[in-house]
């Protein structure tokens, strides 16, 4: 390790000792907002900053459905709307779609009566309740600082009554509550355990490898915590291979290193406990300029695929349905929320990842585009999650417009 980062680290530890609960990372760049950590001094007046998600309803006629383009045969419709900040999705056993959010603090439930969808707010006033997962009749919700379980929620919704107070599992899970990269994603694995990432509480910093920049798994009651993956800066989406059960996850790489790097990641977890590089090794094997030694990447697991720097690949799911053509079977759909930390915008789309024969690597290719106007360098929507439905259609959540699109497939006329 070079002298400068070492010195910075020692200073941080000393300060943290004095200030108690304040995270190590936050002390590196005093008086900068979290998203500006790591910004070079000469970029102090850079216009780049995160795009705030609207908190208000987008009228249906303003939802950019006609911007969406997909390969021939695919078409999109507005499946549900009027839900500001709609992000992560999970499906209940009875067909209710649950949708998490960040800044507006709500969890929505969408019920499909066949002709149209209606939504209700099942939780509100929470701190970034991004994570939602469903198991055995219960909805699990993870906010930054709290975890809840809503038992029998679909029967309560069907009866039209009030939703009972949830079980609070916050203490059982015992997760850190840092704001920075503290919003959670939730998914149950094929082992029936609940998988939860804990992001690095910083843009780039030394972290405790047992608490941050990790993906943990737990029994559904919050017991028996295991560390599944280390060195994961900020994963906000994962799924399990339909055949092998392996965990595949997206990861967002560091800001302010450069317009063109390091690339964001699609990763495959081969063995529990593998280290994916943060904070010393990024993307395809780029040593961190401040924190990495020359051999920093040697014992790290490199990505199965990389995508554009800062493009923010978030929700991802394997496709096992039979509505789409054969080439999509066991491929991964990946929602990219789109960039802020580069002057030439990228992302704002859905990619498809096709795995290699040996199941170790993947090719990435555009699937749903049109929300980014490259000529104007402007965007009209931000895909955050994807969810294959039982009929084989694919739902895509658009946080910018509080809408959920349904993508379906009909064989084009010219195909014999």
């Amino acid at each position, binding site marked *: 390790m070079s002298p400068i980062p070492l010195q910075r680290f020692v200073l941080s530890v000393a300060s943290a000792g004095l200030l108690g609960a304040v995270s190590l990372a936050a002390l590196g760049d*005093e008086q*900068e*907002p979290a998203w500006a950590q790591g910004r070079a001094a000469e970029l102090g*007046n850079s216009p780049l*900053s995160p795009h705030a998600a609207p*908190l*208000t309803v987008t009228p249906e006629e303003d939802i950019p459905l006609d911007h969406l383009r997909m390969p021939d045969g695919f078409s999109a419709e507005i499946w549900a709307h009027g839900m500001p900040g709609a992000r992560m999705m999970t499906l209940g056993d009875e067909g209710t779609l649950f949708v998490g959010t960040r800044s507006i*603090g709500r969890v929505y439930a969408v019920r499909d009566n066949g002709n149209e969808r209606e939504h209700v707010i099942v939780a509100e006033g929470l701190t970034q309740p991004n994570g939602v997962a469903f198991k055995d009749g219960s909805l699990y919700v993870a906010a930054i600082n709290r975890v809840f379980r809503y038992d029998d929620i679909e029967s309560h919704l069907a009866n039209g009554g009030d939703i009972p107070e949830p079980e609070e599992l916050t203490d059982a899970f015992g997760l850190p509550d840092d704001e920075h990269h503290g919003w959670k994603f939730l998914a149950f694995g094929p082992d029936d355990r609940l998988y939860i990432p804990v992001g690095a509480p910083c843009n780039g910093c030394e972290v405790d490898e047992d608490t941050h920049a990790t993906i943990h798994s737990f029994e559904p009651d919050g017991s028996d915590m295991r560390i599944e993956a280390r060195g994961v800066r900020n994963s906000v989406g994962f799924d399990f291979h339909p055949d092998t059960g392996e965990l595949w996850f997206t990861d967002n790489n560091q800001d302010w290193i450069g317009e063109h790097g390091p690339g964001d990641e699609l990763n495959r977890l081969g063995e529990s406990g593998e280290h994916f590089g943060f904070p010393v090794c990024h993307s395809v094997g780029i040593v961190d300029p401040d924190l990495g030694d020359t051999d920093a990447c040697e014992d790290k697991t490199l990505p199965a695929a990389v995508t554009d720097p800062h493009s923010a690949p978030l929700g991802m799911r394997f496709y096992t349905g039979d509505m789409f053509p054969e080439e999509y079977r066991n491929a991964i759909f990946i929602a990219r929320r789109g960039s802020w930390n580069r002057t030439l915008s990228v992302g704002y789309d859905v990619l498809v990842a096709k795995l290699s024969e040996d199941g170790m690597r993947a090719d990435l290719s555009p699937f749903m585009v049109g929300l980014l106007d490259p000529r104007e360098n402007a965007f009209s929507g931000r895909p955050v999650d994807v969810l294959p439905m039982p009929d084989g259609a694919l739902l895509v959540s658009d946080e910018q417009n509080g809408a959920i699109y349904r993508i379906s497939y009909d064989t084009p006329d010219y195909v014999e």
Partner: protein
Amino acid sequence: MCRHACAPGRRALVLSWLCSGLLAAEAKSQEGPAAGLPLEEQVQVCGACHGENGNAVEAGVPSLAGQPALAFTNQLIYFRERLRRSEIMTPQAQGLSDEEIQALAKHYATRPLSPPDGKPDEALVERGRELAHEHRCASCHRSDFSGQEQMPRLAHQREDYLAQAMRDYRERTRGGPDTTMVEILRNVDDEEIDALAHFLAHFERG
């Protein structure tokens, strides 16, 4: 003058009878008093505390005139959703629809905001100007401090309100999902906050 009116941790809440009467009547109802009213009447309700045309004269109450529409909208939604809790504003915001909030935001965004009466303390203005430069306030709030998008207007805002808002951010008592200002103000002391508030309230292009 703020240095006398809002000592750290003390809220400057000496409201007129009209404003406080409105708040007392409101406490009994689930919906805020402006919910469902025509815009002209909603503006009367807001104006009881926030002043005619959004130029506040009550101590500690922010002016709404000239605020970017998104800044106004987001704060009212934070109140409505109980993400930012205030004994005064959280009840006021209940029952307001997104459309009502956005219409009010648009209304106030176009009202002119008058600079404060009284002569500024030149030394304090200069100290505030230096601090604003040092903390890069203009990089988000614009070089004329008129605000943009979700970042509020600071120029000609009430000095006592600015000082209290900055203290509340620093002490993490303001609430709301956006922690940007909490980070920025973490190590800014009272003397600096008072200078910043004085400079911004009396802002003139240097």
